[in-house]
């Protein structure tokens, strides 16, 4: 079992890239800007509002997936093109160890970046609330939300690594990475809507024991971005795994697990059969 060795090496390699530093700085800066803009002096400071109304839609759901794709898309194809994959596979690693070790290593590196990026503004906010400049800063909600942001990043790392394993060249991997981002961030609703409409027109929905509305909701939640949004908002309003929407939340969690495992497996299937 050499997966941990690869994960650790890849983690070390990734956190040493200059991009990581830029990433942490960018997260910190943006969170700080949102905190400043959305917390007018003298009014009540609402941590939950800051996160669900500002940081969530503007930062987490657009930037985190992008970063996940950027961190993951060259994981395997980059090593394949440079030749370091030869060094890696001359050691006793299976190709499955390589693909999943990369998911773990780069997922951990991205999580570290997200945590550090959110932590710096959190310290400032905490200090301000201690000094009485703002109303109580809810550090629990803030840290919990950070976990959801990191989960979303890891899911996109996994999808991008899977794509990278399947790609023969860096160019293919790059195109795949862009396609992933465009699909999930921009086109998911339109594509699944078209698909569902066509299925309904063809009479494929009526025989099923679920309504078109239910399928539509499921398809929305199947997008990891919507899934994480749903879960994090439930968390912030204290309704995680309780209340009426618990089924939706379970669907969202299952789909996040699916997106973390299935793309790397599919990529491995191709990678394992390739001549390198």
């Amino acid at each position, binding site marked *: 079992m050499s997966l941990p060795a690869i994960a650790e090496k890849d983690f070390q*390699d990734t956190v040493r890239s200059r991009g990581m530093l830029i990433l942490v700085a960018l997260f910190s800066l943006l969170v700080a800007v949102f905190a400043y803009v959305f917390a007018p002096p003298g009014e009540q400071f609402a941590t939950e509002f800051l996160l669900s109304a500002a940081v969530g839609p503007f930062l987490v759901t657009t930037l985190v997936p992008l970063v996940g794709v950027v961190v993951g898309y060259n994981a395997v194809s980059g090593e394949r093109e440079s*030749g370091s994959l030869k060094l890696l596979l*001359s*050691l006793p*690693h299976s190709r499955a160890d390589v693909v999943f070790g990369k998911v773990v290593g780069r997922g951990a590196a991205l999580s570290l970046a997200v945590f550090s990026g959110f932590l710096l503004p959190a310290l400032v906010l905490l200090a301000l609330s201690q000094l009485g400049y703002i109303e109580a800063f809810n550090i629990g909600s803030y840290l919990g939300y950070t976990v959801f942001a990191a989960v979303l990043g890891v899911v996109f790392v996994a999808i991008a690594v899977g794509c990278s394993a399947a790609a023969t060249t860096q160019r293919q991997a790059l195109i795949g990475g862009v396609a992933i981002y465009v699909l999930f961030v921009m086109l998911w609703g339109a594509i699944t809507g078209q698909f569902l409409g066509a299925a309904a027109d063809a009479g494929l929905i009526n025989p099923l024991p679920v309504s078109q509305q239910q399928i539509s909701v499921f398809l929305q939640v199947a997008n990891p971005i919507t899934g994480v949004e749903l879960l994090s908002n439930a968390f912030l309003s204290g309704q995680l795994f309780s209340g009426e929407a618990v089924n939706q939340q379970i669907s969202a969690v299952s789909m996040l697990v699916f997106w973390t495992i299935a793309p790397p497996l599919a990529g491995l299937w191709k990678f394992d059969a390739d001549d*390198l």
Partner: protein
Amino acid sequence: MTAIELRGVTKEFADVTAVRGLDLTVEEGEVYGFLGPNGAGKSTTIDMVLDLVRPTEGTVRVLDQDATADGVSIRQRTGVLPDGFAVYDRLTGRQHVEFAIRSKEADDDPDALLDRVELLGDADRKAGGYSKGMRQRLALAMALAGDPDLIILDEPSSGLDPAGAKEMREIVRAEADRGATVFFSSHILEQVEAVCDRVGILREGELVAEDSVEGLREAVGGEETLEIAIDGGDADGANDAAVDAVRDLDGVSRVDRDGDALVVSCADGAKTRVIGALEDAGVAVADFHTREASLEDLFLAYTEGDAPGADGGDPDERAGEEPEEVNR
């Protein structure tokens, strides 16, 4: 036990057959030199041994295990210096070696391995700043981790200066003395002569010769090269006739004309007859000397196809057919 065993191995890529019907056996404990010009299929063969590339036909067994099915367990006991590899630019030399040790679940001291390849002084530098030769030595240190039973070196001397190449040979010797099997490829015969027990020569994906270096030299056998300076004053017609006369002599395998010089490849005893034939034809021999077939000649004889045992065939048939570069 055999260290490497290929039976009827063929590898076809979309555009070229890199290896065809290759049978190759490397016994445990020997140092085997795998020779051939660039594009002969050496790297493809090694890639199949390492399971980077899967054969189209035939079986590849390494350390008595199947190369594809048992790849991880094989590489647990194998050290590899790959060809055309890259290092991890952002990790230090020591981190590379530590990674190799950890991957092989070995307990080597990273510093001892780095010292052995004379890289200890640069161990804490990032490998991205290493020269080609330093990267080569770093990969060798990684290959030596865990005292492997089989060491595979693909073009190990590339990027090394003469001193580095000598150190490489000493390490190969030391590993062989420890009992390891060493299999290494090269396109330069001199490099293998000093260390190899046995040599195999690959040409266009086929093994054309396999023997000790002395055995190969004997097989090409007593061939000598005569360099003869002839008097340029004669009319061209006379010289051409003389060349034809020499070519017809018994024991002469090849005559090349280069202005006023003739280069004649002939059997040991044919020297006097060559000179005699030239003088009979009315050509004045100004000067001549012989040179023994160098290793390079020997290698070229096998790889260009006019040596005994080099699967015959008309050399003209292959004229202009450059071996294709197979690079994957």
